[in-house]
């Protein structure tokens, strides 16, 4: 059965095979090592001329990709850990994302920066963060997060071959070994991907045959796996049914699928792995509050990591990051509040 890692690796092979303009740059990406998380495996053997191993220079390689893109290439950069994006921040914010705009639409910067994100591996404060949080809301930057529900291969192919904007492609480390699609799930999840005309679809998941859902859970990336586990428990243990909405494009965010689900359920839980304050979930709640006529009886909350750096020791890390039980409890609390409101 295919894993997210295999799907991403296949996407890289297919993108490089189908378009000569695709160049791949990163640290330690040559075979036999094939990159720290192995997404690059086999590429340097297959395309020795277009896979460039680089010095440890995240800023320069992101800038080099920008220059390549400005001159007609479609570069892909691998940043070994998402935490190191801080080193490339100026290149993304003040260069890659600005040229098309500030040159009055005369140029394009089609580039993808791929990076593993997130914790739960004990890597500690500087190798476990969800730094995409700091890159949301930058005009001109797409932030796309892969998940195990919606074909990662097509998502990465779209980012590399079909999108002309600079794109940060977020791959949660624990997703690499996740198995894809329906077959690894409890059998009665109904998984719907939004229209394939979108480069970056949103997925909605409900339990097949369930009565009207009582809560909408919006999440992305690896957290979707945990949210589904919690949703299954909520259904089995409490007869609370959730609709789970999983966008792949975090920024700019199309709130419509989340909003539509909220209109049906009246309760919204936004879940992310990054530190909860001022995060993606804050934006989701704001957009729903602004967009819904039901805002008068808006029952909503965010769930994310505690506002702390990520600890290394497993019990500490588990306590800092949101887990299945936390999602379960947060959803229960929301539904209870909603019931009180209704009384």
């Amino acid at each position, binding site marked *: 059965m295919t894993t997210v890692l295999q799907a991403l690796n296949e996407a890289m092979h297919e993108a490089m095979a189908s378009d000569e303009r695709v*160049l791949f740059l990163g640290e330690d990406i040559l075979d036999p090592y094939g990159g720290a998380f192995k997404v690059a495996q086999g590429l340097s053997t297959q395309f020795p001329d277009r896979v*460039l191993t*680089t*010095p440890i*220079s995240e*800023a*320069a*390689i*992101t*800038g*080099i*990709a*920008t*220059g*390549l*893109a*400005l*001159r*007609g*290439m479609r*570069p892909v950069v691998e940043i070994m850990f998402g935490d190191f994006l801080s080193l490339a921040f*100026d*290149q993304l914010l*003040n*260069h890659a994302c*600005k*040229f098309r*705009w*500030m*040159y*009055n*639409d*005369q*140029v394009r910067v089609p580039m993808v920066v791929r990076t593993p994100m997130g914790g739960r591996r004990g890597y500690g404060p500087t190798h476990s963060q969800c730094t995409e949080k700091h890159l949301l809301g930058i*005009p*001109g930057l*797409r932030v796309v997060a892969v998940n195990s529900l919606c074909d990662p291969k097509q998502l990465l192919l779209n980012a590399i071959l079909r*999108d002309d*904007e600079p794109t940060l492609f977020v791959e949660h480390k624990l997703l690499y070994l996740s198995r894809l699609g329906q077959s690894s799930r409890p059998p009665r999840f109904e998984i719907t991907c939004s229209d394939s005309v*979108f*480069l*970056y679809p949103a997925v909605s998941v409900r339990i097949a045959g369930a009565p009207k859902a009582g809560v909408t859970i919006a999440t992305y990336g690896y957290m979707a796996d945990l949210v589904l586990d919690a949703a299954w428990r909520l259904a089995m243990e409490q007869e609370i049914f959730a609709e789970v909405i999983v966008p792949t*494009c975090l920024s*700019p965010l199309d709130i419509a699928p989340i909003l539509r689900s909220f209109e049906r359920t009246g309760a919204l839980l936004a879940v992310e792995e990054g530190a909860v304050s001022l995060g993606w979930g804050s934006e989701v709640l704001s957009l729903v509050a602004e967009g819904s006529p039901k805002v008068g009886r808006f029952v909503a909350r965010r769930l994310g990591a505690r506002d702390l750096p990520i600890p290394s020791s497993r019990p500490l890390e588990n306590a800092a990051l949101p887990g299945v039980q936390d999602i379960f409890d947060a959803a229960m609390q929301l539904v209870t509040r909603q019931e009180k409101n209704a009384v």
Partner: protein
Amino acid sequence: MSDTTGARLMHEMLRIRLFEERALEEFSRGRLFGTTHTCIGQEADAVGVIGALLRSDIVFSNHRGHGHYLAHGGSMRALAAELMGRSTGASGGLGGSQHLHFPGFYSNGVQGGIVPCAVGMALAEKRRNSGAIITVFLGDGTLGEGVVYESLNIASLWKLPVLFAVENNRYAQTTPVSANFAGDFSLRFKAFGIDVDELDTTDVVVISEAATLAVSSVRERVAPRAILLNTYRFSPHSKGDDFRDPAEIDRFRQFDPIILLRARLSHEEYDRALIVARDEVMGAFAQAEKDAWPDPAALLDARQELLKP
């Protein structure tokens, strides 16, 4: 130096000088947006180095880029219009003084960040065997940025056709080199295996000859090279930030590149160059002033729409 070369170089420098002087005037009248960094005194760098390039070569410039833009063939009217925020500006009024573009010319106002972009462009041109080289302009202050050294390392390692043109005007905004620079300018390049030509002159003819050799070397060897131009700017960094000793500025006036070259031209040659340049500058600003403002609602809505996936 043939007569025609001298007259041409004078014309090139004068059109930059007069443009910059006019820009400062317009700024004082409140008719320009933001700020403006003029290159008065440094014209020989732009004219000498860019004059050695082919039109098909690429120039990546910085915050002090008007001279580079004009020397590489950018439209003066589009530059004036850009400073005045008009729809006909080089960047449609979206970019302003530091963010200029036409095919083969790029600029950005963040110190050092343009250097890896230029190196990436050199990689693109090398891979497609276009024969084009990239010239990126840095200042003494820019050498404080770490990403510059990441870029020098990779440009040398991958043998990329890029010319690093460093204009050392002795000040990073208000801070003299003595207060922000350790060691030696050329050694910073040599440490990465990049050859450097260091010029202690504002003579455009000397710069032009050295640049021609440097450019051929980059093109033929397909490898990076640096040209270090020790120069001086008479104008302030931008506006209202000049705290240099006026006596020091006066001392450097004897090295004004226009004065140096003028001594070698006839009165007629100089006057002709001056008149042509003055007419061009007057025409550019007169036209730009009449140009339409961008339509904010329509433009911003359309651009926001473009950013959606």
